[in-house]
């Protein structure tokens, strides 16, 4: 078996330039895992994977458990250890879902290029993510009600086709990732990346120092995560969330629940004692962009200023 040389030195999260939307979504999902998974969609070369891996390294100290293209279902849900089986011993080998979400695990399963994954594998994963239960019936093995708890993080390039609306709805947060706009920002990305690559070949203490800010950021997020249960969600906020959901004609309650959970995480990160309209307005694009009027093709409609106006109108009417 080939293993990478630990630890994985990827660009420190705090040095990732721009990507504010994706960063916010990842932080919300970390502070309040019940909000559901994160899907980042954007064109090629917009540093989606880099940001996700940098975030995982910051908060978990390692790269996330990653589901690769070409994975077979025995590695996703688990299967016999074939090395042992060839020697006559039957040993169960947990799959990637358990590796990510089993007891004592990091709780993140990362799927790069999720729209290139075969549909039946996506279905298995989303079922487990939504129910928190993994059931395996294969190769003469019956494992029922294995508790798994993980947040799904997916990245995709919409040029290769979208995800079905049913799958989109399973993600708590969806974020558009755009290329850096200005020449100055692009130049800053270059100097940051190249400077980090130079550090990789330099003295180890300089490299370690590059992660100092990451440690501080993680500390703030951990503190926010502890604060979340104490953040009050006033009845007025729930009414506003309901009004926003009604304005967007959302079906079911998954959208407004995700919005409230995300707003509470935003409040916890900001150090606020209770959720207010501003937190809801910040949470709305991430939690509703994929739940309002998406076409059957799975093509997402971008969040617009008009959508922001609808949120503002609903919150002021309800408030």
């Amino acid at each position: 078996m080939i293993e990478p040389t630990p630890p994985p030195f990827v660009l420190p999260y705090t040095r990732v330039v721009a990507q504010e939307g994706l960063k916010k979504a990842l932080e919300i999902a970390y502070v309040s895992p019940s909000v559901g998974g994160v899907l980042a969609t954007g064109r090629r070369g917009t540093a989606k994977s880099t940001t996700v891996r940098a975030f995982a390294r910051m908060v978990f100290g390692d790269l996330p458990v990653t589901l690769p293209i070409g994975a077979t279902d025995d590695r996703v849900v688990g299967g016999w250890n074939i090395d042992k089986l060839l020697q006559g011993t039957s040993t169960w080998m947990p799959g990637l879902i358990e590796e990510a979400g089993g007891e004592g695990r990091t709780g993140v399963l990362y799927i790069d290029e999720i729209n290139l994954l075969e549909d039946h594998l996506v279905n298995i994963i989303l079922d487990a993510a939504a129910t928190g239960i993994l059931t395996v019936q294969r190769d003469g093995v019956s494992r029922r009600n294995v508790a798994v708890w993980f947040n799904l993080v997916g990245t995709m390039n919409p040029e290769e086709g979208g995800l079905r609306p049913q799958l989109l709805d399973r993600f708590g947060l969806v974020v558009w990732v755009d290329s850096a706009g200005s020449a100055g920002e692009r130049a800053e990305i270059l100097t940051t990346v190249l400077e980090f690559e130079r550090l990789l070949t330099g003295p180890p203490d300089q490299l370690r120092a590059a992660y100092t800010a990451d440690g501080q950021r993680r500390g703030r997020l951990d503190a926010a995560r502890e604060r979340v249960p104490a953040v009050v969600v006033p009845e007025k906020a729930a009414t506003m969330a309901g009004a926003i959901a009604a304005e967007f004609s959302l079906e079911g309650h998954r959208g407004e629940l995700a919005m409230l959970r995300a707003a509470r995480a935003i409040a916890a990160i900001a150090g606020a004692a209770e959720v207010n309209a501003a937190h809801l307005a910040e949470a709305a694009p991430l939690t509703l962009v994929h739940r309002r009027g998406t076409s059957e093709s799975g093509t997402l409609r971008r969040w617009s200023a008009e959508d922001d106006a609808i949120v503002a109108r609903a919150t002021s009417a309800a408030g």
Partner: protein
Amino acid sequence: MLRADTVTDRIAGTLTCAAFDHRLGGILLLDLRPDLIGGLASWLAATIGGPARIVTLGADDGDDTLWVTADAGLAPAPGRLAESPGTTLIAVIPDLARANLAVTRAATVLIGADGAVADRHGLHAAWRPRARWLAACPAADAERLSPHLLDRFAVRVAAADLGTPARTPAELVAALDGHTTGLLPALPDPAPLTGPPAVMTAEAATLVTTVVGGPAAPHRRDLALARAARAVAVSDRSATVEARHVHRAAELLGFRGTSTRPAAAPARPASPAHPAATGDDTATPPARPGDVEIRTPARPDTPPVPTSVLAPGPGPATAPRQPLYPEDSPDAMPDFAGLRVPWQRADGRRSTRGPIIGAEPSGRPVDIAYLATVLEAAKFRRVRHGAGAPLRIHVSDLRSNRRQPQPDAALVLLLDHTSRRDWDVTAALAPYLGWAYTRRAAVSLIEIGHRDADSELQAERRRLSGVLDPLLNAALDRAPARATPLAHGLDLAIQEMRLRRRNLPVRDGEAWLVVVTDARGNVPLEASQRNVMPRSVSRAGIDDALTVAAGVAGLRAVRTVVLAPPELSHYRDLPFALADAMAGMVARPDGAP
């Protein structure tokens, strides 16, 4: 400092940069002679130094060879793309446009990634990708590739001119006996770059973004240019990356209109024998020493991309210049969802032809997926038969290949634009296009006699993704020209139909050749084949067309129809003669005289 004057310089330079920095490991050589890529891979391996493993990937490689394989004890083992510390992997793709879907998907997720994992058949392998990917592709095919895939190959070189400009008679004679070394391009001796990476100044970083282009340019392109500039600076023994290094890197990577070159920089004149070798057709000499001037950015003036014409016979004397980044053109039409596993066809028939895209349980020993079957049986060998028992495969172990579905119907449409001057052919075509749509037929388009043609005397062939392909609409809007190389068009149509019948599981009676013409060919076949304007034509164009058309009658189980225009003012019998020669029929609009 690395040179960038000739195509050989640029290829040697980019490979040297890639040897220095594995992050520059996605290199696409456009129009490279296919026999050269192996030698370039060896040269790259020698430049990197140390143990190297060169793997060639193509149409046959599926997930079961790339990610996981079986060792001598039948246990799963890492596949061809898994990397081991201390050994450099060089993945070679001789034709990216024809590589298996599994190969292109693997390239997309591995090139430039921080980490890689393989999880198949009970095996988990993880490694840090440091492989260099060397791919070649005809420039005309590149625009059909997924932009997502092309993005991974941020380093591009137009390699059509790579070859030996002067062949001596002695070398040619030696080549007859298999000694081809003298015909290979003379690359310099490998000279690896050494030294710490240079520091990029803010000025150089800004220059990189300016050279690469506007805000829509992918970041990987910025990074590729910046890293190449850093390697160039190392080759120049400079501690910092300066503007001249960025310019030289831009020349290596073929960014157009990058800059004038500082006069102080040593430079050889471009070889007059290879005007396309510089990859920079807008560069001009510096106005005065030290001038560093940014000219037109690369992206906004990217020239229109020629459509993917499979030109028959010898090409024009001067091949049209192809852009290095065809996916940037608004006219580029890549295959839709080209990296996704295709959806299953509705008729449910299993095919044993077509690229392998996976394995699935099967109760029948047909089209067996050997690795998956053997691994499945190996799992239970000891349990079923005891220690030391030979491997026995049960029916329940059988796995068969899952194959990419292929069309089982074909439409070859020959459009003679000169016959459509005042005739909207859409209504006449509708039944055939409707049939092709419902049958999901493979569609080929042969065009003759239009003003957009590269050569007026020759027919053009395009393979469409289906009848909804925008190229078909574009073809129906073309303006007619004067020449009608009908014989050449029919010759091409026959070739195309044969290829479709041979390469696809086309059912009998499910192949249509539809010829839209008034049968008034005016270009003899030989004139088309030589691409030389004939001195006199007389009836040669018509007679050649009728002679060639007789070949259609020999195509087995192909249905043929000539769609003739409603107004036939001259030579009214010609469409019927043509249809007779093809053993087909003529269809004309209702009420036509």
